[in-house]
């Protein structure tokens, strides 16, 4: 009797625990992409489906590099994608309208981390920790700090897929000319090369801006960075961070209007005079070809510049670039470098999707070591390296150069996030607007930042200070602790 009771008890316990054990064991497969494929196949089998089309919202510049991999996933699993393209800065608004409509019009989407807090609070972004536990994605291989971009209030909502921390590129061929080096050293007292500080970058920019005919339209511009509406604030924020500063104190009082913010803004404005005059209207589609056309000495931008600059046919300066650590400021005798994680796309799964698990498997597939390497190395790709394994992958090295990869992943060690708390888009928009007004000379840098700080206070009060402080405390953990990379 006792024996029978024990046997029955063991069997019952085993039955009860089997789903837990299965979940803990996860999906079979040696690699994350294999597990994604197996997980997707198991999902299709469990649902009795042979083919499935997921709807996806995607920034238009990402389609070229992604569709081939999605087609490969469909071939393996039967899960395909109907994607619709949206302008990269319009993703938040489209997602927000879906949060209201709750229509399930798309199952997943690619978007930046700025919108994450708002889209979580709006109920659109689905927490994926349960699926992460099952699929075991390659989070361990992701460079430190990047995974945090997809988390909010202790939960994972986004699969990180794009290492968008800024990099500085300068023209090696021009910087290496002996006669130019002599002239430069005589004038500024140091050998031209990768600058350590923003002051040094400004000196390079001044020296290499070439307008021999005095037309006001130089043959070579000394510097490039983004200054357009919707973009420019990110470049200022990076400089501000390099002052060793944070945007808020612990009570969420803005700290941007102090001397650090004003000095950073003055430097930002001063550097703009060495850039093309139309830079205030430019983003990636205009900036990359301009630099790759050999029209500028240096550019601070996203790492995908390497694809444009090293393109064997389209670039006039392939093999002539020097990839640099981002410059910084010397604060209290110590150099502080900060590379802003200036976009960084994530795969999000919608709470209103009928097939969230299927969407997740595709996201895991796309962000696995193997597939992400193919995406990053693609000829038209704007996916940027974000995994340690990308550093040694020959396909990525060929597309981006070894030097660029090493520098990029070093920059990642001092990568700082954008302001990623609820209302982030509004905080950043106000900052953006006032920085542009200062850049245009409509207001002083001091007034621009004071106005921004006042507007931030208003936003914080509207959203509720207590809740915002919680978000800020969580975000503070994502800021780098190192001043310079190892």
């Amino acid at each position: 009797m006792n024996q029978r009771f024990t046997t029955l008890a063991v069997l019952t316990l085993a039955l009860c625990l089997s789903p837990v054990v299965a979940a803990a064991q996860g999906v079979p497969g040696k690699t994350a992409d294999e597990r994604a494929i197996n997980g997707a196949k198991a999902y299709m089998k469990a649902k009795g489906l042979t083919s499935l089309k997921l709807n996806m919202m995607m920034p238009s510049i990402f389609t070229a590099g992604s569709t081939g991999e999605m087609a490969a996933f469909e071939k393996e699993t039967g899960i395909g994608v109907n994607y619709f393209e949206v302008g990269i800065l319009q993703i938040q608004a489209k997602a927000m309208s879906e949060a209201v409509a709750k229509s399930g019009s798309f199952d997943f989407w690619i978007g930046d981390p700025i919108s994450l807090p708002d889209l979580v609070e709006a109920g659109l972004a689905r927490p994926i920790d349960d699926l992460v536990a099952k699929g075991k994605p390659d989070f361990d291989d992701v460079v430190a700090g990047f995974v945090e971009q997809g988390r909010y209030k202790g939960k994972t909502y986004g699969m990180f897929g794009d290492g968008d921390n800024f990099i500085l590129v300068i023209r090696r061929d021009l910087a290496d000319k002996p006669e130019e080096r002599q002239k430069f050293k005589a004038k500024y007292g140091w050998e031209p090369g990768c600058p350590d500080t923003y002051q040094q970058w400004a000196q390079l920019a001044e020296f290499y801006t070439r307008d021999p005919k005095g037309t006001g339209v130089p043959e070579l511009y000394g510097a490039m960075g983004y200054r357009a509406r919707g973009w420019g604030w990110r470049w200022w924020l990076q400089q501000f961070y390099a002052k060793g500063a944070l945007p808020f104190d612990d009570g969420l009082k803005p700290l941007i209007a102090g001397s650090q913010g004003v000095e950073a803004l003055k430097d930002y404005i001063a550097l703009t005079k060495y850039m093309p005059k139309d830079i205030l209207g430019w983003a990636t589609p205009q900036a990359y070809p301009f630099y790759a056309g050999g029209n500028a000495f240096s550019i601070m931008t996203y790492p995908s510049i390497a694809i444009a600059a090293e393109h064997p046919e389209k670039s006039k300066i392939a093999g002539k670039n020097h990839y640099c650590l981002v410059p910084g400021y010397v604060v209290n005798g110590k150099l502080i470098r900060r590379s802003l994680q200036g976009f960084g796309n994530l795969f999000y799964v919608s709470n209103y999707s009928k097939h969230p698990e299927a969407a997740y498997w595709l996201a895991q597939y796309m962000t696995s070591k193997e597939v992400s390497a193919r995406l990053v190395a693609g000829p038209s790709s704007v996916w940027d390296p974000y995994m340690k394994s990308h550093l040694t992958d020959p396909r990525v090295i060929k597309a981006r150069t070894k030097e660029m990869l090493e520098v990029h992943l070093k920059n990642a060690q001092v990568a700082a996030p954008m302001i990623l708390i609820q209302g982030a888009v509004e905080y950043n928009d106000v900052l953006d607007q006032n920085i542009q007004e200062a850049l245009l000379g409509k207001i002083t840098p001091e007034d621009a930042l004071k106005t921004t700080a006042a507007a931030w206070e208003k936003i914080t009060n509207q959203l509720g200070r207590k809740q915002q402080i919680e978000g800020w405390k969580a975000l503070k953990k994502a800021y780098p602790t190192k001043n310079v990379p190892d």
Partner: protein
Amino acid sequence: MRAGDPPAPDRRAVRRGVLGRLERERVFKWIPFVPVQTLFVALLLPNFLLLVYLSLLSWRITRGAWWNAPFTGLDAFMVAIGDERFLWALARTFLFAAAAVPLELGLGFGLALLCRSPFRGRRVYSTILLLPMMIVPAVVGYDLSMLLIDQGPFNQILSVLAGRAITVRWLSDYTAAPLAVIGADVWQWTSLTFLIFLSGFAGLPQDPIRAARVMGATRWQVFRYVELPLLKPVIAIAVVLRSMEALKIFDYPMLLTQGGPGNATETVAVYLWRVGWEFARVSHAAAMSLILLVAVAVYVFIAIRVLRRERRRLAAEGIA
């Protein structure tokens, strides 16, 4: 009819009943509109009422469902009125419309004047002139964003014409960017005013024109004192239609400049979109859109009054 039979129903009396009422023009003329208006009301009225209701709440998309949002009365309107950026966007939008609409009317009128009389190839020209309004505004915005960069084709053409390098920063200069947005609107929507005026010219009554000619009026006098007054209702319609559309301008500033540089091209539609869908402040956006609605309604009301007055005047003169 025999004596004692009940009297036959009077047909005219029957007509005075339901059918009679229907036959009367005052009633009958409204009947065809009933289905359309019912559909219109059914589709728009609930949305409008919801908009009004939302404007009385304090709802953010990030703060749960709207039906749980607190009722705050006119607070959202006070926020809107106190929002300097909204007021600037409103003023800027009216300024854009004030610049774009007269240009569109002038150009459309001029082109219609050129195409009103038959000539060889008139149909081809008319078709070409109508093409811009058939293009999706977003496509126009995107194309122009590439044509208007400072070293782009537009400046290159200007340079050839001027015989010197022209590098106007159409998309990044505080003064030039609004001109680019206005220019995009004018380029696309002159087609519509051209079409309206062409129809207006085609529908002009010929008797007063002939009479004026018989009385020895010159071509200019016929145009100035006969045709132009007759066209006033058409002009008023074109003004109302284009103004209403111009006050909603969104695509060009969004695609050309993102509302920048600074806020130089941020129209009220762009700002409303930001407040509602980017900042998630739906109640504030609802209040702002109602303020905009009132502003546009006042404008249209005045325009319609002018239109009616002109019609009455023409009717009194026996011209129309």
